[in-house]
């Protein structure tokens, strides 16, 4: 089976999730005797592109155009579909990131392909690919089969392993895809990145505060803990609605879906809509003074006590451990 892995880059840096996509493509290719082509799109292709060979790409295709310095859904979709056709790809893998989710449905339509969105597990059975994806905000899982000849899958970030490199490099082939002005009907004009801030959707550890934090100033203790372990700070909807934290930090059904390796829920009760966004985290720690708070039902480890005592003590203890 030929697999096309679409590699997301922003500012000439290949995103971590892109390695997950290439490594997953490799694993599917190994099971089906297939081959992986990686596709990188931009005005200048990052030098790291050749290293994608080490993650399992036997070939890297680069499509370059000055106008591709900024993301455009229509142009990206056109390029992805043309390369998929040219490469006879049976499967197109894309990260389910803000960018990937934005153009993957277009690629599916162009290729007459079914779309499996936000997939969290993949299995090959009798040569057929089975995808598992969370539905009802993670309250249920569905196993699906894409029945069209070509299949487009988006992979939930942080779920699939990025794999290890084997030192191989792949040849980077620059392919020309003719693009007209009309292919750039929508285009990104500016990007405002909150400076140096780690996004909850990309973080490997998240420390989230809820209403029990009592006020915006008290998030400082969470930020200190987060700073010590390289975590992002998340918030429950109650904390966001109170105006203590920006909406982009909200975790849950109407916020972000996250799956870090460690999720620390501080003074969060564990409402079903909150659980929806974080229950696929690998380890969950709950700190809550109410022993009956539902969050303890989902937690691996819990401490029933006042967050204002526990959190600073955790920061100190971890600093000790890390020798800081």
């Amino acid at each position, binding site marked *: 089976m030929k697999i096309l892995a679409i590699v997301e880059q922003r500012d000439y840096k290949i995103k971590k999730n892109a390695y997950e996509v290439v490594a997953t493509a490799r694993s599917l290719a190994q099971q089906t005797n297939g081959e992986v082509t990686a596709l990188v799109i931009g005005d200048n292709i990052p030098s790291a592109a050749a290293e994608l060979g080490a993650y399992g790409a036997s070939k890297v295709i680069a499509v370059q155009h000055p106008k591709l310095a900024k993301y455009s859904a229509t142009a990206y979709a056109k390029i992805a579909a043309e390369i998929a056709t040219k490469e006879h790809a049976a499967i197109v893998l894309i990260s389910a990131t803000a960018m990937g989710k934005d153009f993957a*449905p277009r690629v599916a339509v162009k290729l007459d392909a079914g*779309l499996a969105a*936000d997939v969290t597990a993949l299995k090959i059975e009798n040569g057929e690919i089975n995808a598992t994806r969370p539905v009802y905000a*993670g309250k249920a899982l569905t196993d699906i089969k894409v029945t069209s000849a070509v299949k487009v899958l988006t992979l939930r970030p942080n779920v699939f392993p990025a794999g290890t490199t084997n030192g191989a490099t792949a040849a980077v082939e620059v392919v020309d895809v003719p693009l007209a002005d009309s292919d750039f009907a929508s285009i990104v*004009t500016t990007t405002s990145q909150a400076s140096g801030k780690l996004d909850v*959707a990309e973080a490997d550890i998240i420390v989230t505060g809820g209403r029990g934090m009592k006020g915006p100033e008290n998030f400082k203790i969470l930020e200190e803990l987060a700073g010590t372990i390289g975590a992002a700070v998340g918030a429950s909807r109650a904390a966001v609605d109170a105006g203590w934290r920006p909406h982009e930090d909200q975790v849950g059904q*109407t916020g972000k879906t996250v799956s870090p390796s460690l999720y620390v829920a501080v003074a969060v009760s564990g409402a079903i809509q909150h659980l929806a966004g974080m229950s696929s985290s690998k380890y969950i720690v709950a700190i809550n003074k109410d022993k009956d708070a539902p969050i303890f039902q989902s937690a691996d480890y819990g401490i029933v006590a006042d967050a204002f005592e526990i959190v600073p003590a955790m920061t100190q203890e971890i600093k000790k451990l890390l020798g800081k």
Partner: protein
Amino acid sequence: MKIAVCINHVPDTAARIAVGSDGKSIDKTGVTFVVNPYDEFAIEECLRLKEKNGGEVVAISLGGDMHKETLRKAYAMGVDKAVLLKDETPRDSFSVAYALANYLKELNPEIIFFGKQSVDGDDAAVGIMVAELLNLPSVSTIVKLDVAQGKAIAEREIEGGLEAVETTLPAVFTAQKGLNEPRYPSLKGIMQSKNKLIEEKAPAAASSKVEVVALRKPSSKNAGKIVGTDVSAVPELVRLLHEEAKVI
């Protein structure tokens, strides 16, 4: 300005989800259905666009008779016309998009709004597929929209920030929470919505490209270990995270 908004009718986010007897869909007993929360932001934005620029807002839903409830809510909020593309059998996102695109082609609106995603299937696909089928630009998961002189600038959420996207019109937008605060329908609006006509049409047929094999509950975690009830538990918690879970 002609504006269209596509809205879905979904289980309330607080609903407990149980697997139905077919093993492929939910057990609907006792489940309350509501307007898809993201579609409320979409309706609100359309109403504001109309209030500013004049024109009309048409709400469209594809589904069974149940979807009329959601269309009535749209009427109560203030849309001018509601259309049900009536189909009792479930469809995948492509075939929903296909039928909506088919209807929208006729209607030919300048702005088409969707929610970011339905909170049942969580595909986040239909709006963007409609845009592709109609050969229109789209901006998804937007939190801000400015429309002027035949073009629009929308802001969308990305990891760690926002990006501003400029697009020509007509265009498709999908609404993220934060775009606006949806209004509550007035009592008068609710009363009037009861007598308004919901136009029924047969949706264009399209075959599904995705087959559901099974719906299941995630294997529930056993409630974890309460490490302690005061600050003396902290060293043990940190040890467990370091040695057992190996996450720090």
